């Protein structure tokens, strides 16, 4: 049993392979831990703290998304301290950020029976940044999960166009000195948009359709194909609404892309359709 670790989660003994996180171990016993910032293809940011669990002998709660299981650990995923922390996290986010397009945050608010009204106060409300042809940034919806920063950086894109600036309540995503995206190092791969869990980053097509009240999630159907722009073989999922491609993604579990694409795979459909219709976005 050299390569497995035995621990107890909510009273249930469990053995997991070495290196397994507490999040995955809890999932294995059917006690799923809620997460907001965690993403299967990105390094854990540890930022949202929704996934905290109680480990006996540890003073503070620990983030299950990154903490690795150790032999003999006694873990509680639903203790009163855990539930209080989760509820307060949900309340604080909902009290400060527009979570109307953030299903995971909304679910946490619901699940923890949060009362965000308790924390009425300053809200994050910067104006919408509409400065390029391919996506729109509405940071009033940003929960600062760091996913976009990681996807743009060492975890996928290696462009490092964006990072966190400012501190405390004023911390925010920034492309460098508050620049517009076209002036930044951005290469418009849209990988940040793909991983954003809150709608703070949104493809222009979706944003426009939503503004016009024409975005209808239920009416969208998807088709899988392979990108034809180069020989890498990236899987594409075309999202089609009213016979029009409205979004291109790639499956998170695809071995080549892990959900990440380049500007051509993700956005070239706009040019194709723009050529057909004679108008359309320009970067």
């Amino acid at each position, binding site marked *: 049993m050299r390569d497995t670790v035995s621990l107890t989660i909510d009273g249930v003994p469990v053995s997991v392979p070495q290196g397994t996180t507490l999040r995955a171990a809890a999932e294995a016993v059917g006690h799923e831990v809620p997460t907001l910032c965690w993403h299967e293809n990105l390094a854990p940011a540890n930022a949202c703290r929704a996934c905290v669990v109680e480990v006996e002998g540890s003073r503070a709660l620990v983030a299950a998304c990154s903490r690795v299981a150790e032999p003999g650990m006694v873990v509680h995923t639903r203790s009163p301290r855990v539930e209080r922390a989760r509820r*307060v996290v949900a309340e604080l986010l909902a009290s400060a950020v527009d979570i109307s397009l953030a299903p995971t945050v909304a679910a946490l608010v619901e699940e923890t029976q949060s009362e965000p009204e308790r924390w009425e106060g300053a809200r994050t409300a910067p104006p919408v940044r509409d400065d390029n042809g391919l996506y729109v940034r509405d940071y009033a919806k940003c929960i600062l999960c760091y996913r976009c920063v990681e996807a743009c950086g060492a975890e996928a894109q290696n462009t490092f166009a964006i990072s966190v600036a400012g501190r405390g309540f004023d911390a925010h995503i920034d492309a460098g000195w508050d620049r517009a995206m076209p002036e930044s190092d951005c290469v418009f791969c849209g990988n940040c948009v793909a991983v954003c869990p809150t709608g703070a980053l949104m493809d222009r097509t979706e944003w426009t359709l939503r503004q016009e009240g024409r975005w209808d999630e239920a009416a969208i159907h998807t088709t899988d194909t392979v990108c034809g722009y180069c020989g890498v073989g990236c899987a594409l999922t075309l999202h089609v609404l009213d016979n029009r491609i409205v979004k291109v993604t790639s499956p998170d579990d695809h071995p080549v892309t892990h959900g990440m694409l380049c500007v051509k795979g993700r956005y070239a459909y706009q040019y194709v359709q723009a050529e057909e219709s004679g108008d359309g976005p320009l970067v």
Partner: protein
Amino acid sequence: MRRLLPADDTVSPPLSRERWRDRGYHEAWERALTLGPQTVIEWVTAAGLTGRGGAAFPTGQKWASVAQSADPVKYVVMNADESELGTFKDRALLTRDPWGALAGLAIAAFAVGAHEAYVYLRGEYADVERLLEEALALAPWAEAGSYPLAVRLIRGAGAYIAGEETALLNSIEGRRPEPRVKPPFPTARGLWGHPTVIQNVETLANVAVLLAHDVAWFRAVGTEAAPGTKLMAVSGHVARPGVYEIPMGLPLWTLLTAPEYAGGIGGSGRLRAVLLGGAAGTFLTADECRAARLDNLALQPFGASLGSGAVMVFDDTVEIRQVVRQVAGFFAEESCGQCVPCRIGTRRLLEQLSASTLDIERLRDLGGAMRDASICGLGQTAPQALLSYLDRPSLWPRTSKEEECHA
């Protein structure tokens, strides 16, 4: 009690070679080289030295874990960021006796096998910066022994959070000073991923005086669990504010009132409360101040600890609730913004404390969640002063109107 701070009649200039010898640092360094790394670590462990930067972690234990690492690249770092409210003892120490902490740094490097060391200095300490630059140019430890050691001085840029050890490492690496998740601890993965010892200025100065003497000498002062001395920075309503070196376990009341220390309560002369340990500290009532002894074990029943050694004294004209609010403002300003409980929680605490009435249950809820779920010590301790205030109704505003406020 003077060990770290030189006696008043010391005549050699702080940065002179005479001072290096007078204070026994030459001998300490030679002794370290003679004893060898392992014995030095044994001495530090046997002396019972604990960190003086706030967390009081056993120093020898840190060194042993870095020393035993197979990684050939190791680092040692002196944490001179000193930004905790009411804390100015490292500045006093570095100004009055700069060789002590530097000798300790060299000894730490030798003991764990590091050939590169960093001194991370609070950006505002420009005078200390000049002093340290000069000291590093002289580098008396380079003459005495054959141990190669490069020491670099890094200036902080004005963020309290950069004093947190892993944020400090990020800052040295040129990144944003956001704390990293622990584990892994810096002793396992520190600077550029290599095992790293980070130690407060005062801790390192203790190492130097320990090696200048021996373990029995070191333990002759202080308590069994907390041997040695502690620098305390006393500010506010006392007759003589300043930095005082005390034997661990000294009654707080003695520090506040004895003529050789702060010399008595100032202001109105009537003590209201002491905030012990800085912004992240605990309020003690006047009665508690008469009962408390200054070592972490003795402070436990009060829910307090020495922290960085800050003692902020308030007379009975001070409305403690306003102090609590100011402390909350400090944390809202200094949170790095990385995690939700602290980024939004510090702002909400400030907002709630700015309101005319306090909802105690709600504040305890938030404080508890911040303490439990924040990534680093900043968010975890940001509600500490408030929670200690809520636990001590005698510190609440006295008018009947305000009794309702706290209902």
